[in-house]
């Protein structure tokens, strides 16, 4: 069997080979090039603004991964994911600002990394709480319970109580120097970018591994037919709750990451619209694929950026365009979803899969 190119048939002789990350040298080469592109070329070429755009993509992707897991792999439709991102963000912020860290840990820059892990755990457990109804309800009814998560968490618990801690009202600012990872103070888009890349890489590897495990297969079985899955001996409630936990965990990481980018936090960052946006991201990217979450995040952020770039010169003649940009952006979001539903219902990931297949099978693609 060729170790460079994919063979024209399935010649795997063990599960280890079948599940290998890099099945050929060519794939390994491609991934090394991708790594060089992300870790060297982009930070070398992009200015601070475009790095901040990349950070926005990373944040969207970290959020969308959880939504993809719940909707795309486990079939549990959610419209309250930004609540779990908010839990992660607030847990991390409060730990940084209020927890009496020993000076040694602050000096070693461990406070923020530890807060990310704790934030992810808390968000995961909070997500399980709102996943409990999934044991009894599904479809539209589940959508409503996840929406309740949004309103109970963000509009009630966080806005009225959590964000009042310290007596400063709704918005927290993180003073410069408080977000530190090891010896590095995360205070520029450049440093945030590298942190984002590390987190995104770890989350994608973690999720991809989970999906090829027993849990992943159980999730897909539940998605395809929960009754059949139960008949096959899968504990449906357990695996649904596990999916909520992992999705919340990823959301918590997204939230904890986001505070490093903004150095500020308020409940307005985590509106219901952001939950809807994340669903839009996976619909456009492709439901049921990690690639879908990646492509959807890149597409949605870049389209909005290009839209903004596009209207700037026109604003000299039509100044109202700048004032109306907020709504142009939201209209573009709606339009993009409609366009994809009509012209590309399986999302960008499907198109990517087709392109890859074309080259993999070339010249005998029939």
């Amino acid at each position: 069997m060729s170790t460079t190119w994919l063979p024209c048939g399935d010649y795997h002789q063990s599960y280890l080979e079948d599940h290998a990350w890099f099945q050929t040298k060519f794939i390994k080469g491609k991934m090394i090039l991708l790594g060089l592109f992300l870790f060297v070329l982009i930070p070398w070429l992009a200015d601070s603004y475009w790095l901040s755009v990349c950070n926005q993509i990373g944040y969207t992707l970290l959020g969308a991964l959880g939504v993809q897991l719940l909707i795309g792999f486990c079939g549990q439709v959610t419209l309250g994911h930004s609540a779990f991102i908010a839990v992660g963000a607030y847990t991390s912020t409060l730990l940084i600002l209020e927890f009496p860290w020993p000076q040694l840990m602050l000096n070693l820059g461990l406070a923020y990394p530890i807060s990310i892990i704790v934030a992810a755990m808390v968000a995961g457990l909070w997500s399980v709480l709102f996943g409990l109804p999934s044991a009894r309800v599904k479809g539209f009814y589940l959508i409503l319970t996840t929406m309740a998560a949004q309103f109970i968490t963000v509009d009630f618990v966080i806005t009225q109580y959590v964000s009042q801690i310290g007596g400063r009202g709704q918005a927290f600012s993180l003073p410069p120097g408080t977000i530190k990872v090891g010896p590095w103070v995360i205070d520029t888009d450049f440093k945030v970018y590298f942190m984002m890349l590390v987190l995104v890489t770890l989350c994608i590897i973690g999720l991809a591994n989970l999906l090829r495990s027993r849990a992943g297969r159980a999730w897909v079985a539940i998605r395809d037919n929960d009754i059949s899955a139960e008949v096959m001996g899968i504990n449906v409630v357990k695996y649904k709750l596990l999916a909520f936990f992992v999705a919340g965990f990823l959301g918590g990481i997204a939230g904890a990451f986001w505070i490093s980018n903004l150095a500020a936090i308020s409940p307005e960052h985590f509106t219901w619209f952001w939950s809807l946006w994340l669903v839009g991201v996976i619909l456009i990217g492709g439901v049921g694929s990690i690639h879908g979450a990646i492509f959807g995040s890149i597409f949605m952020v870049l389209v909005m950026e290009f839209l903004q770039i596009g209207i700037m010169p026109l604003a000299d003649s039509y100044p109202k365009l700048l004032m109306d940009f907020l709504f142009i952006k939201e209209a573009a979001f709606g339009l993009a979803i409609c366009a994809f539903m009509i012209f590309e219902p399986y999302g960008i990931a499907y198109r990517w899969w087709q392109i890859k297949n074309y080259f993999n099978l070339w010249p005998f693609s029939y």
Partner: protein
Amino acid sequence: MNFKSVWSKISIFLFVLALITSFSAMAGAAEVKVGGLVDVTGATSDVGKDYALGMSDAIHYVNDQGGVNGKQIKLYQFDYGYRIPEALTKYKLFKRLGSVAVLGWGTGDTEALSPTITKDEMPYVSASYSAHLTNPAKTPYNLFAATDYSTNARAAITAWFDKRWPTHPDYGKRKPRFVCSYHFAHPYCSAPIKAIKDQAELLGFEVGPDQNVTLTAIDTKSQVLAMKDFKADLVWHGNTTMSVSATVRDAFALGLGADHIVNNWGFDENLPRLAGKAAEGVMGATVAEFFGNNVKNMDIVVEYAKKYNPGVPLEKRLVRSIQAWANVLALWEAMNRADKAGDLTGPGILKKGFETFRGFDIGLSVPPLNYTATDHRIAGQVPIYEVKNGKFALVELVDLKGRWPDKWANEWLGW
């Protein structure tokens, strides 16, 4: 329809727009770029729309006067819908576009951005007058051409204590009872709470439970009934005009019997229009002249309002326009001074511009502006007005700095 052709057309369109933009960015060499954030559609749009009009009118005026020593100001004015994340995103855009300063809006976003603008050394002239932004040791690049919320709140409760309480039948028999009505969750509304309660304690008030009234409230009866249970003599309103007028109306309808004092963003020409008879006697702080009144430079404001926004009748324009003019004129002067010193940068605008102001007068009944390297509060005197027959009448010019000089100098800065 062939979807491939649709996608190719969209891609070409986006590519062409990107090209146009990159070329247009090269063309703007002789301009001074300024970012502008306004709220014309969000929770504070009742006061934000007029402020936005005032901001663009004032920039037109500045450019007609030759801009910053001959360089025209290019204003990038965005509506951010009072959404903090949108404000943060737009700030990054302003930075990328090469803005030398930003004209901001709300307290939540201004306070959230404060560490970032300090790091970026970006002068940020906001419509948020939160006292948290007045201590240069913590927020050196935050500025505004107005007295801050805490100063306004202290002045308003003091004016009521001086002028109204002595006429009350219970004067001398008991402490006056006071409650605060505001949207707890909004940083703008809650910014001066600590200060006004401190002043209430200083003057000997009995403070009752705060009432949570949202910025978009239209029915506040339950909150008014709670104030009635407490038998409040005075209510401080920390919201914007629409919400304040709803509360004042409900208080009138339910016979609360208390007086009202209002923060500056809840006290404008729309209050008597919206609350009618219920607004009579309501007192409030104002940081600039009401629109159209005969004071220095008002003729220019009116002329530019007519010229650039003829679709908005003058009788609908508000003091918010004047507040915007005040901020723009202050920034203009600071940029002029910095440019003359050959340093039109963030630190230059702050140190060689704003912090050289010693009683700089921009007219429009804005107190003469003073900014020092240790104190960004412009003045210690606040005029308190009341609504009388649907018009605004001066009650008292409260001199906090003169009455409590030690506290003003040593205690009250920055909160």
